[in-house]
């Protein structure tokens, strides 16, 4: 929701003043070394990847160096099943699901253990909720989506609208919605689509439970589709702290303009033993619902 406000405010300003931005050279200090653990596991039946890298100089323009040789183990604490992730390349550790595996079981607690050079870093999380989608529909784009990004196209374009319902019990649900056009993820920081109980993050009390998802979340970033394009949506049911991690990251990634907030470091749920090289990052296990539609 915060980001939505920001976009709205910014759009207004653009109209009014010739504010300008230019890339400048800034000399920055070098930060101390950190391990970065990127562990987002979900219920989709695809290869699960956990990535371990180090932090880099802010202006370095290469992929961050991967950390090979670590032992990466995911444990389902409810049934003590272990999933060992194996190193492939670029810091990626992969687990390929067999036909009998089910990850992200409801109400199961998962722990992650990452051992680098004899130091063991750990984290744990619970997968609580199931995600669901009713349907996706296609609307003709009449051109009035002023701030939807992307240029004007000569041919007719369409917008996808998501229909989903929040769970009917009193528990607060947190959703991370990912949208694809022809299997390409809209992965810009501005495309992060998050909401609480379906209402755009606006209402955090019980009153919003069991409602239909509302705009702006359901407008899927105002992305435009053409005839024969395929629109696919994933709704990830995530934990509240994962939701907070994303909103915080989103603010920090592009924190400019008149309404920038004071920069801050993103939180981490990785525990570093005392006195060792610090590891930061995020561990999440999510239930995912997915649906797709072809524009005809």
């Amino acid at each position, binding site marked *: *929701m915060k980001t939505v*406000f920001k976009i*709205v*405010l910014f759009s*207004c300003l653009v*109209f*009014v*003043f010739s*504010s300008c*931005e*230019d*890339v*400048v050279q*800034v000399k*920055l200090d*070098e930060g101390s070394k*950190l391990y*970065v653990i990127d562990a987002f596991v979900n219920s989709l039946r695809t290869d699960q990847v956990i990535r371990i*890298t180090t*932090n*880099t*100089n*802010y*202006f*370095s*323009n*290469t*992929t961050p160096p991967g950390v090979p040789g670590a032992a990466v183990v995911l444990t389902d604490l409810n049934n003590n099943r272990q999933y060992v992730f194996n190193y492939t390349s670029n810091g990626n550790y992969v687990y390929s699901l067999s036909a009998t595996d089910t990850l992200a079981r409801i109400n199961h607690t998962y722990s992650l253990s990452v051992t680098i050079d004899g130091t063991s870093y750990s984290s744990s999380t619970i997968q609580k909720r199931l995600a669901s989608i009713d349907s996706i529909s296609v*609307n003709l784009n009449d*051109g*009035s*989506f*002023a*701030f*939807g990004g992307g240029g004007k196209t000569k041919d007719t374009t369409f917008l996808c609208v998501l*229909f989903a319902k929040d769970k009917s019990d009193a528990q607060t649900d947190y959703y991370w919605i990912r949208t694809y056009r022809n299997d390409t993820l809209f992965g*810009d920081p501005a495309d992060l689509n998050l909401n609480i109980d379906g209402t755009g993050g*606006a*209402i*955090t009390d019980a*009153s919003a439970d069991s*409602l*239909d998802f509302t705009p702006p979340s359901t*407008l899927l970033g105002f992305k435009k589709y053409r005839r024969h394009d395929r629109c696919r949506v994933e709704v990830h049911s995530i934990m509240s702290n994962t939701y907070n991690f994303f909103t*915080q*990251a989103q*603010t920090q*990634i592009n924190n*400019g303009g*008149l309404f*920038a*907030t*004071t*920069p*801050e*470091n*993103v*939180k981490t749920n990785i525990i570093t033993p005392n006195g060792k090289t610090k590891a*930061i*990052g995020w561990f999440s296990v999510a239930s995912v619902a997915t649906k797709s539609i072809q524009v005809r």
Partner: protein
Amino acid sequence: MKKIGFIILVCITNLLFAQENATVSGYLKDAKNGEALIGVTVYKKHSQVGTSTNAYGFYSLTLPRGNDTIMYSFIGYKTIQNPVNLNGNQTVNIELQEEGKDLDEVIVSSEKADVNIQSMDMSSAKLDIKQINKIPALLGEVDIVRAIQLLPGVTTVGEGASGFNVRGGNIDQNLILLDEAPVYNSSHLFGFFSVFNPDAVKDVKLIKGGIPAQYGGRVSSILDIRMKEGNSKRLSVNGGLGTIFSRLSIEAPIIKNKMSFIVAGRRSYIDALVKPFVKSTSAIKGSQFYFYDLTAKINYRINDKNTVFASGYFGKDVFGASVFGFNWGNATGTLRWNHVFNNKLFMNVSTFYSNYKYLLDFKTNSGDQAFKWTSNIVNYSIKPDFTYYLNSKNTIRFGLQSMLYDFSPYKTDISFNDGTKTSLISEKRYGLESSAYISNEQKLLPRLTAEYGLRFSMYNYMGKGTAYYYRDTTPNTPLPLDHEQKYAKGQVIKTYYTPEPRLALNYVINAKSSVKASYNRMAQYLQLISNTAASTPLDVYTLASNNLKPLIADQGSVGYFRNFKENMFETSVEVYYKYMQHQMDYVDNADLFINPHVESQLIQGLGRAYGMEFYVKKNKGKLNGWISYTLSRTERLVRGISNDKWFFSRYDRTHCLNTSVNYDITKRWNISANFVFLSGTPATFPNSKIQIQNYNIPYNTTGTRNNYRITSYNRLDIGATYAFKKNEKRRYKQFLVISVYNVYDRRNAFSIYFRTKSGDPNQTEAVRYSVIGSFVPALTYNFNF
């Protein structure tokens, strides 16, 4: 504390109540339009015995009986000498004539131009609207808040940021009064223009320190804006066609010399100008963006003893397109009654209502899914103020104020595609702030004057509503809820009391120089919640509560004032130190919008500010203007932030140099210029980045806030005004104002921030963001008759 003050006062009163005296009182007005004149010096000829008119133009002077001459003197007006035969109390109303422009060669011997030396005022500045009108302005539009930013001790985080920072205070620490009613958001268009229509404004006074006891409720400054009453002699019209908006004001007598009104309005027309050029298929079709405001006032002078005023302001900013809408606005209404009980006792009672609200909505094209959010803060207040002109040595002021806050944090309306609708309404919050004050301005010695007083404020946070109680936790993380408790209507949840002592001293060394010192404690029971660089119109105020303590500031300042060349030059040097408690800060990743637990996201910390201000002003002559320089430091200490060490606040600027000059070349041509140099504001820069889910996130491994400073800000503006040749038989006057803002086209950085290059997730860069990235020329046509 209050009792002691009273006893002291009574003693002093008795001591000085001896001689056979008589009192002269009355109102001072402008002979041309009947406007009350504020701050006119009224004194006994060839003496230091005197007073000045108050905000309603009233004065009262007590002198020994006998024949005397009373002088009435005011800058820009001819001094009047009025012989009186004082054998009893009498009422003398005076109208002052403006000094003609072509009277340059006539030396106006207003002995009392050294008001700045003699008066109690320190750390304050009075801006005449005529002076403000001459300052070259952004887009040619004269603006009061931007003019104030040229004064010493006043800074801003940058162009486009609403409000202003006074001596290290946040923007919400300024009490902005429009005809005694507080204005919560003084900005149009985010912060480029203020809501005050210069055509309707008569007098502007900024008080940064030594704040008198009659003011309270905000800790850093008082911006007291007085509207014109409206011409009570004849119909008069002022107007202007500008680059961005147009203005029109009409003022006229309803009953000559007794009753008059003024109505002034403005509307921006960027949208109307753009409309013909927008194709029906364009993405911005259907979008709207404009603002307008309307200011109106009517006054009725019933008789010499009673005058009533009613004034109002209404303004709105609107932005939007077919899928979203966004607007905000203020409405204020004030009713006032001036009553003169006798020649020595003056009363003003003000009651006011103010409502600040905003709305944000999103909807699908067809409107079948929609989401709407509104919020508002309503204020009701009554405020009787009394001035008792005891004798020529003592002026006692006392009064009361009571203010009710009625605050709706949010109300959301949601519509679904199946036609159902739902509303989610937060509980209202209520606060009642009450205060009483008494002060005395006393001439202790021929050269030493003191103004001492006490304000006592009391605040109740009240039901009906739910109070949330939080547990303490790791600093800089949201507080976990401990329990909540329901309160009935009017039931007190939490009470705070603050005694606020005020003291100001003036020691006059000689006719040309004086030393002044002051101390004040101020309390503030509501604060703005804003963690963005520039405050947004969506930022809401929050009341002191069981969780949030009132903001308290103590400030001391000392200054030396000296005039040169027959008061042609006024100069001053002041130093100040300010210490603030319970200043608002925010936990990391604070969620401040539509959050019933917003208080769990706030942390209160300490603030300190100190500095030195230099000011030189040339009052007279063809070339006039001022230079101000401030050397200052503003810091904060907040638990859990920046490794628990003091850090620079966002609006800390080490050096501030402001120059504003004006030159009358001929009767027709006038040119003016501003030059501004400000140190860069502090900023937090990362020293590395981390990659998660293919997002590059900046990371500062040291955890220090505001560890860098952005480049300095400097700017030159120039302006020229041409007065068209006037037909001597007609009153119609026309002016053309040409101005260029940011003449040498400097891209001053508002901020430097870090982002991922679009299209390549591995590339990150530093970006300089400039709000105004080029020079801005403007042409304005003004007229009046």
